């Protein structure tokens, strides 16, 4: 992660296997702003422990945005549970690299707005080249 001044953590990233660390390292490599994203390691944890980890991490910071991978994934499920007790939390499921880059580089001060904008960017960045006509 970046140690640049001003790179306060703005969102958590959680998902299967090395999804979070991989994407955050890619954001860092491309933008130099990986430090605004905190990867959450969940290997070996049950759903309740993932929920507790997310809630504890949010409680000890000002972060209110979570990016996850699969909508059916246990990190998404855990984050949805966290939202029940922390209604201000924004969850974006289905995160991809263009989405996280957009969020990391955003100058939007309202991070909830930045998350919604990044989600649109990520959705629009999927293209298919070649294949069956």
């Amino acid at each position, binding site marked *: 992660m970046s140690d640049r001044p001003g790179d306060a953590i703005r969102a958590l990233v959680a998902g*299967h296997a090395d999804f979070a660390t991989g994407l955050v390292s890619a954001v860092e490599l491309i933008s130099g702003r990986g430090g605004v994203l905190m990867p959450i390691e969940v*290997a*070996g*944890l*049950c*759903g*309740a*422990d993932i929920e507790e980890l997310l809630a504890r991490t949010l409680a000890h910071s000002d972060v209110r945005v979570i990016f996850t*991978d*699969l*909508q*059916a*994934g*246990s990190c*998404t*499920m855990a984050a*949805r*549970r966290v939202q*029940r007790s922390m209604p201000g939390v924004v969850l974006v499921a289905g995160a991809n690299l263009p989405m996280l880059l957009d969020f990391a580089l955003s100058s939007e001060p309202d991070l909830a707005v930045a998350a919604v904008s990044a989600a649109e960017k990520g959705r629009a960045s999927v293209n298919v080249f070649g294949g069956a006509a």
Partner: protein
Amino acid sequence: MTLVLNRIDDRLIHGQVVVGWGQPLDVRFIVLVDDTVAASDWEQELYRMGVPPEMEVRFHSALDAERCLDAYRREAAPGILVVGDIATMRHLVERGGVREVNVGGIHHRVGRVQHLRYVFLTEPEQEALRDLAALGATVTAQDVPAARAVPLDELLAAREIA
């Protein structure tokens, strides 16, 4: 078709179930047996949110489920049974006709020892799995279809360093 998988997984419905097993087995419905989820509309909506539209989720308490499983096994489409703990699966082995048990995910908790990357057990939980086998169920551990099904004796003998 029938219930093609009877799974113990403390994460209940998640990526491995919906995508890992669901897609290759063309699963059309998931039977989620959990007393807490069965009593909560919010919990049910949470799990419904995680599955694609072509996959149905049916929620039951353990008592409900014992009466429904035979009918589910006679359906034309394949389905998956998921419970969150060994005790619920024992109920369904004793009263619901379950004969094959997949240990798909019992994760880290204080007091549990790691046996596989995705299976952590206390001593009583080890005994509870042995009891399932003594009741006539074939118990194996397997997180995804591409992995090897680990027999119960091998699972209980295995120790991994976290």
